[in-house]
């Protein structure tokens, strides 16, 4: 019977989803799946139990080009389609949300803003190193008192003489914070919100790790504390964006990947539960033969399939540059919600076995509890869609 180490070769594909992919997209997914089967599944439960991030995978994923893969080749990236990037996130999160979160933050929340908002020198310096995983990044937007309402942030950057800035503030819930070489820190300035690259080791900058999580245990989560941190404008300030649209633009990129990734975790739980139910005998029959279990499987595979086509269409729109942040909100909201529910149903199918680390289900389910409220809570995305269709923002 399959446990956490079960390396199912195929993704769940009920409706010919893979037939709509290009050769490159199929190959990207297969290479990511092989990587997860070979390098992640055998070690991930222990890392989750020990609350450690599998750091040895950072450079391996870099060699394979998993960071910022949709950015252009001139910066050491692969120039993939958005759908290929989404498939990569799907497979990484089938391994663990922590791993996908690492890649999301590195690629979408650090490399992407450097690419979109940075100077040419900043791009040339950071992007090739970050693509290889030689340098690690984190993204500091959320604060202890400002989550869904980032515009109210208290972190401040003030211009100093000699082309320098002084930054003060505290950021919280920062994935990769303690292991990062550079943080993208968003701060209030006299020109509105601006982004700064703050390097590890800068005097006054600390990133203590947050412990005690029951979710994303194989991921590093930190605070960022900035006390009179002095940075040079030329190296640090992202010159090409001002205002809240800067960080929100990054989040749209990352949420796109999350909408794909959550389905990967759901697929892992679905396949595990299906395999279990076909082999688990009660009343002299496999439990998969009982109608109550079949109802669960029918629901799970239906939601998984709907989610796949939602993100596929979103990816095609994104590549055609015709997508909107509100569409990304729908995909993130729907797919994470469905994925969490799929994991919960899968857990019930395994009964008590569902809580053991011999199977991946409880880990994925606990991870998705974070994903449900991070990068825009489920509720906020609901309100974004509400605003989109009614024209009235309910949260202002």
């Amino acid at each position, binding site marked *: 019977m399959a446990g956490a180490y079960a390396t199912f*070769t*195929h993704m769940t594909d009920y409706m010919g989803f893979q037939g709509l992919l290009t050769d*490159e997209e199929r190959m*990207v997914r297969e*290479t990511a799946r092989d990587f997860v089967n070979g390098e992640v599944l055998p070690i991930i439960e222990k890392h989750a139990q020990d609350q450690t991030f599998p750091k040895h995978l950072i450079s391996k994923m870099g060699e394979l*080009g998993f960071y910022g893969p949709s950015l252009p*080749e001139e910066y050491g990236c692969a*120039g993939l389609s958005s759908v290929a990037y989404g498939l*990569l996130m799907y497979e990484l999160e089938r391994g663990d949300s922590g791993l996908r979160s690492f890649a999301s933050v590195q690629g979408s929340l650090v490399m992407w803003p450097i690419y979109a908002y940075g100077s040419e020198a900043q791009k040339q310096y950071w992007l090739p190193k970050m693509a290889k995983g030689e340098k690690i990044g984190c993204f500091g937007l959320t604060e202890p008192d400002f989550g869904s309402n980032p515009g109210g942030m208290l972190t401040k950057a003030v211009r100093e003489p000699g082309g320098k800035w002084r930054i003060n503030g505290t950021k919280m819930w920062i994935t990769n914070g303690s292991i990062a070489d550079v943080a993208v820190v968003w701060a209030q300035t006299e020109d509105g919100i601006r982004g700064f690259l703050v390097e590890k080791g800068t005097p006054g900058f600390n990133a203590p790790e947050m412990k005690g999580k029951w979710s994303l245990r194989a991921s590093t989560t930190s605070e960022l504390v900035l006390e009179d941190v002095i940075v040079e404008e030329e190296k640090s300030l992202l010159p090409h964006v001002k205002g809240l649209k800067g960080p929100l633009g990054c989040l749209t990129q990352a949420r796109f990947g999350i909408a794909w990734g959550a389905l990967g975790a759901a697929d892992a739980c679905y396949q595990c539960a299906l395999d279990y139910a076909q082999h688990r005998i009660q009343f002299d029959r496999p439990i998969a033969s009982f109608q109550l279990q079949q109802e669960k499987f029918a629901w799970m595979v239906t939601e998984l399939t709907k989610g796949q086509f939602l993100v596929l269409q979103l990816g095609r729109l994104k590549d055609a540059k015709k997508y909107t942040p509100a569409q990304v909100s729908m995909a993130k909201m729907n797919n994470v919600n469905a994925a969490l529910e799929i994991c919960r149903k899968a857990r019930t199918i395994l009964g008590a076995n569902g809580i053991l680390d011999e199977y991946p289900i409880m880990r994925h389910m606990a991870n998705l509890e974070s994903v449900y409220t991070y990068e825009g809570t489920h509720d906020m995305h609901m309100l974004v869609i509400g605003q989109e269709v009614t024209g009235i923002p309910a949260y202002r």
Partner: protein
Amino acid sequence: MKILVALKQVPDTETRIKVAADGKSIDPADVKWITSPYDEYALEEAIRLKESKAAEVTVVSLGSDSAKDVLRNALALGADNAVLLKSEASDPLAIASALAAWAKGKGFDLILAGNKGIGGDNASVGPMIAELLDIAQANVVVKLEIGDGTFRAEREIEGGTEVIEGKLPAVITAQKGLNEPRYASLKGIMGAKKKTIEEVDGAAPSGSTSVVGMVMPPARPEGRKLDGEPAQQAAALLSALKDEAKIF
């Protein structure tokens, strides 16, 4: 140095094989196709030689259009050129003849292949190519060193290792343990998109054998549960092993 790697497309080992209606082939419905794992070792060895000795790596697969998938994958992994030899040949001698006829005169110093294609398990195409081209061969190789026009190969034999030296050109067939195949990088995958797969109509040389039937193994008979006290169960098991299974 020019290296040729012969790749075979085979059903994924996870596929539940069904016999087709003709009773002598595999039903292709629902089969996912992969590169034969032993061929992956052969390809990895070629790519390592490309990296260490600046070799040019050509991959060839004999089959239908679907075999382009394994060729594209090989290009993503680092092969320089890919050739699809279109042919319906299925008998090992016919396949080896077609491959040898195509490779002849093209100046390959080294021809690598898996020691067998999983599923068929004939383990004969590699050695036959060597014989047809009248060049050296070493099979089931777990370690390979290439010198100046020479090779040194270690192969697993019963209870030990046999070391073979020979002159290039040669055919080397790979065994598990030769290396650890890499994953295709995303840049490699995007690079493969820019390379083309050459298609050649392979002749259909006549084979020496033909498959007349294919049958699934009989279903395993249901197990038997022994009842009674442990001592009775042990006695029943012993007599069953002795009298029914006749293992002593």
